[in-house]
């Protein structure tokens, strides 16, 4: 494990570079295939509306996968992530308009732990609404 960020370089409040991740219907179809999650709420608008959703929504696990990229891009080595958890609070609604939605993710160091570990708190929003809650990672730095 070789994170490119050193524990001594960061302090509580250090911000990780924020990122925005676009998501379209095509993204969701591709993610469904790669993940094996073919729930029609992620690709079939008629079905989604029938079960009470405003439109097709992104897989929660897709949003979770995008959010942690802010951490893995920061550390370089994905193995730096030793713990990662989220709560799915609001769906990411993905309209069939060619542009879709955007998931905006910011993150900062919330605590310095022992053994070169830090806790990073993530914030993920779409259309100004928080889509993940309690989104935290424990990360091993160099």
């Amino acid at each position: 494990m070789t994170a490119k960020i050193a524990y001594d370089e960061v302090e509580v409040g250090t911000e990780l570079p924020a990122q925005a991740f676009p998501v379209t219907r095509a993204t969701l179809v591709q993610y469904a295939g790669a993940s094996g999650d073919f729930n029609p709420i992620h690709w079939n608008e008629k079905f989604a509306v029938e079960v009470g959703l405003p439109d097709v929504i992104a897989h929660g696990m897709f949003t979770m996968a995008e959010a942690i990229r802010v951490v893995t891009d920061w550390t370089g080595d994905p193995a730096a992530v030793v713990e990662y958890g989220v709560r799915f609070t609001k769906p990411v609604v993905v309209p069939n308009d060619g542009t879709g939605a955007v998931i905006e993710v910011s993150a900062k160091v919330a605590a310095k732990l022992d053994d070169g570990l830090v806790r990073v708190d993530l914030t993920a929003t779409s259309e100004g609404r928080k889509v993940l809650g309690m989104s935290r990672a424990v990360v091993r730095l160099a």
Partner: protein
Amino acid sequence: MALDQSFVGRTYPPTAPYEVGREKIREFAEAIGDANPAYTDPEAAKELGHPDVVAPPTFVFAITFKASAQVIEDPQLGLDYSRVVHGDQKFVYTRPVRAGDRLSVTSTIEEIKSLAGNDVLDIRGEVHDETGEHVVTAFTKLVSRAPEEA
């Protein structure tokens, strides 16, 4: 109807091994748009100290969720899956999943709660490799929404 509390602590048999392929990892990394070379280039992964390409942190969910079908579809438990939404998800890693792994999942029901008529089910999936070493534990909270009153 509230789920039977006596299922708390129940552990299901380990799943047949899932063999993690390099190209499956590549497919997943492409689907999430992540160009980190540790996911696709064995040499880049080796430079980071890994024996082969590693998988993105959430990749393993496809394996643990499939395993949790044993719980979700247990007719004795009687969960109404058509009403289930994914509440929380957490992973605790010993090491990243990597190509060549043969992973087996052991699912345990950690907790059953009833909140405002919703059934809340916590499933822990322990993932081990073919040598029996721990790789990652997945904690999955499922919420089965109460049916609307007729």
